[in-house]
């Protein structure tokens, strides 16, 4: 069971909302803290990868389970 500091459920939201909500949530967090995002948009897999590369926030984990997508993002 992985640890995280905050969780964001972006289920049902479509591009670009999961990214925008994640960014907003990360803004309120401290460096080194981990955000867990749940999404149903299949496009979010590539988007969170690209978000991580461009913002420097580390994508620690990206996985799919039962039609949902789960991401662990560590704030830079």
């Amino acid at each position, binding site marked *: 069971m992985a640890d995280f500091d905050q969780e964001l459920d972006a289920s049902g939201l479509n591009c670009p909302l999961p990214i*925008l909500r994640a960014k907003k949530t990360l803004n309120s967090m401290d460096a080194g803290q981990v955000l867990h995002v749940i999404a149903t948009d299949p496009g979010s897999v590539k988007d969170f990868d690209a978000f991580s590369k461009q913002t420097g926030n580390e994508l620690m984990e990206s996985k799919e389970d039962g039609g949902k997508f789960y991401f662990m993002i560590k704030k830079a």
Partner: protein
Amino acid sequence: MDEKKLAIIATKGSLDWAYPPFILASTAAALGYESQIFFTFYGLQLLKKKLDLQVTPLGNPGMPMPMGMDKWFPVLGMTLPGMQGMMTGMMKKKMKDKGVASIEDLRDLCQEADVKLIACQMTVDLFDMDSSEFIDGIEYAGAAAFFEFAGESDICLYI
């Protein structure tokens, strides 16, 4: 790392074409870009306080139509009174069902993320529009002001 810059010119005032500028600018802002949208001609409709954006099947053969309507009533059927309103209503419902943000929401997100929204002063005058019709927090400027930002931008889009 220097902040990247995104400059967009938004020229269209329909519901479907309202999405690209606001989606791209809000996403760019989330990625750390300094972003600016310059609204000119029909794009000014996107800055109105009360949005009344429509989508039209007219002159738009790429628009998916329900029940094969485009086959049964090609072109002329699309000119029937109420057709545009109906298509707009259906499009809005579909967007809501699929979790696509409203234009109002995306515009708010842009403003929250400090995307600079600029109305083309010349078009505002041309169409006898008044600044009271537009949302707060926007600026008014001309072509030279756009180039001041666009000339230093990493990405520049005309939509």
